[in-house]
């Protein structure tokens, strides 16, 4: 099992979610996050004063998938989230040791 975290542009969230549902992904966790990468912050001028916007709002998706789905899920996110411009986001992949569904106590694959 693997955990896939994807940071995407907020307006791409729906598209990514729909694309994932289409390939049979049934659950994910979504949160609103802020951060910056190569895109950096930018400065905006408001009534003569300069304000630096350091952190740019993004959406983060987290999902746990069985190993054999990793390639397809990543490809799907890449395709759906891509605009080709700076700030499209990143995808992180990490191993997951165990998953437990609290209500039933199911473990592993069945609990995903």
């Amino acid at each position, binding site marked *: 099992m693997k955990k896939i975290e994807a940071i995407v542009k907020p307006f791409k969230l729906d598209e990514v979610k729909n694309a994932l549902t289409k390939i049979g992904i049934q659950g994910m966790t979504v949160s609103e996050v802020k951060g910056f990468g190569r895109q950096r912050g930018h400065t905006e001028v408001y009534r003569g004063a300069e304000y630096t916007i350091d952190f740019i709002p993004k959406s983060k998706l987290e999902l746990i998938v069985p190993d054999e789905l990793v*390639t397809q899920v990543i490809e799907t996110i890449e395709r759906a989230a891509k605009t080709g411009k700076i700030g499209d986001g990143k995808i992180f992949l990490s191993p997951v040791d165990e998953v437990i569904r609290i209500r039933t106590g199911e473990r592993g694959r069945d609990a995903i």
Partner: protein
Amino acid sequence: MQFELGITRDGLKEIKNRMAQGAPTHFSPKELLRQYSDIVDGIVRKTFQKAQSSVSAPSVCLVAVGGYGRSELAPYSDVDLLLLYSSPQKPDLPPLIEKTLYPLWDLGLDVSCSSRSVSECLKMAQSDPYVKTGLIDSRYLDGEYEIFRTLYELFSKKILHHKVREFADSLMKDVALRHQKYEDPAYVLEPDIKEGKGGLRDFQIGRWVIRAKYKTDRWDSILFPDQSRILDRSLQFLWALRNELHLLSGRRLDQLTFELQEKIAPILRFSPETRGIEEMMRQYHLSSQQVWNFASDMLERVLYEPSPVKKASSTFKRKKLDPFFGMSYGEIYLLDPVTFKRDPSQLMTLFKHCQTYQAKMSFQTEEAVLESLPFIDDRFRTSESVNQVFLSILKKGERVESILKMMHELGFLSRYIPEFAEIEGRVHYDLYHVHPVDIHSILTVEELIKLKTATYQKELPLLTSLIQEIEKPEILFLTALLHDIGKGLEGDHSKVGEELIVQIGVRMGLSDEDKRLMAFLVRRHLFMLEIAFRRDLHEEGTILRFANEVENPDHLKMLYLLTFADIKAVGPEAWTPWKNSLLMELFLKTSHFFEQGKGTVALPKKEEVIRHLLKLLPPEIVSDYEEHLPPQYLSSYSWEEIAHHIEMARLLEKELLLVEWTIEENARARVTVCTKDRYGLFSKITGSMFLNRLNILEAQIHTWANGVALDTFKVEDSTRDIERRLQQFRIDLSSVLDGTAFLRTLLSKRQEPSIIQRKVIPRVPVDIRVNNQDSQFFTIVEISGEDRLGILYEITQALTDHGCDIHFARISTLGNRIVDVFYIQDEWGEKIEERERMGRLKQTLLNRLTPGDLSI
């Protein structure tokens, strides 16, 4: 809780597996859907009854909707339920829903449930087409039957057959939106069996329309028996594919990915290997075409039926076109339904009218065309009047592509030109050819029409003006339509196609001159592209040989136009500015050759070059260098460029390496590298470029007699960050050359194995050809194989290890296939001509390129 249902999650999986093995899913796919639906029915009923008995249940009814309502449940489809109650007041349902759904979820079923009252349902069905279609397919499962009966009666009486046109209109909008999404080439290669164009959803659309309009669930009853048989076979095939997709992937996956294409083809008993996949995909394309024809036909029947008001007034708007056809509201119709039977040649006239009056045909007329397809026989195909009308349609040059599409969709085209049937739906199992051959052929005509109507005036002015000069455009369009006609049969498709097009030309009664021209174009339709993309256009011999084959300027023009349209119609990424400039260069050089007469394009004399250099550089410098410059080098660059190169070379006394570049269009650059020649220099350069994601398109490599290496490259960076990448390339190359860094180390960092498995895509076999005929001074090595990171570095390294000197390289990428061409000599500056040495060279390259060998 699971034990109480008498089934567990694993048990359910087991049932699915048994179904997959036991009942051959591909012989009766629909049967499998029904069987599985019955099993789920049992489970759902039992759960519901248990739930009802354990909570104080109000009087409700459980209904199956959607695909489950139709008893068509693929192994991992959604199970859609509706909990129906009669009272307007919402009873306390959550405990009942919880007790029903949780056990089903725990079994791994994908269940969704909505709860509504009868009146809510009816109200929603009036405004929401999705609720409406859900109810069309609803089926009673358990609970209070009366409630279901009330709903269904009211629904049938008050909603289903009302506002049919609005209903069809909203379905049509849904279709357009959905298809637009799946137009992306990625989805054409890996189609979605359910949602894509001609998918299972489209079939339901057609069925719903029939249900609403004709009040029957027997969709086959309103089609001709032949039609419904073909449609049924197509559906069975799509269902079979979908069942296998679900069973193999273990989830609700409807997209036929390459990986699953490879797995499913043998299960459905297609021939082994790539051919089987291509056969399966052909059947898929033909089937989805049938389904889409059905759905669009049904929608049109409703959408384009004149409303009663219009009907009454339409007598005034009618216009008689000739003794057989009339027109009203932009639609052409038959005056007498038996016309085609009496005189089939009127079929062609009908298409001509559609073009002339920019009209569609009424759906009754379409039906009449379908019905009269059997009358199209050899007499029709050889009839002079029919063929003249067909050619005049082509000649007119407007809307030709839409008329051809119309002919194609109605099945007329493949009756009229039976050879065309063989290429229908035929696909290549690769990443480059997006469309099936028939679609590609029509798109090729479309591209020419776009040129003709000056759509590309801005970006392609030369081609746009050339097509206006063509004397008989109809012959060019006809050839474009048939250029790949040989792909339906075994053998080299250009040669087979040549025979077929002559045969077609004879049947159409074309002149000998036209037939000869068409034969030439089909036989040679890949020739210009091969020369432009794989040969050194600086070599005089290349142009000479090309010109001799093409024979005259008219042939050249036609071939250039056809080559353009052919590439453009392959897919959105096939035509690139780079290919455009290569083809244009070849066209212009060859035209000049024809204008000036044969043999006058000679290599510039060395003395002449020196004379020009003396105007640009001080005489002492010119005399320092003139003896070192090889003739091949002199003929490859202009005097200004040579002068500049000499200035660069002079700096080598102080500098190790000089790299200069000019950037074109943001993404491509021309890079000049000047340094002292050394062993493996070229592969060090390509390695450093690869390291910086610079994609090499072309390379010219020259070594002067004084040991100065002067190489020029055309490179590309798809991320549009080329300036930064080139800067880094210069730094990397110079540290590799001065020994502070090792390319091997840098590359291995880049090639850290990823734990992500590679996506399955069509494989490309390695093919290596050694050619000693096409160039006077060089052996040409043509390598085609699967593209992967750093492949060019590996090839050049292998050539260097073999003691070869690379003079010129041209690299093209077609999807995931590369075709790399190298002009080489051995260490003594000779061609490699002995059979044994050629064999060894091939073997070295083959060893290096065989997949799996990623050693650097």
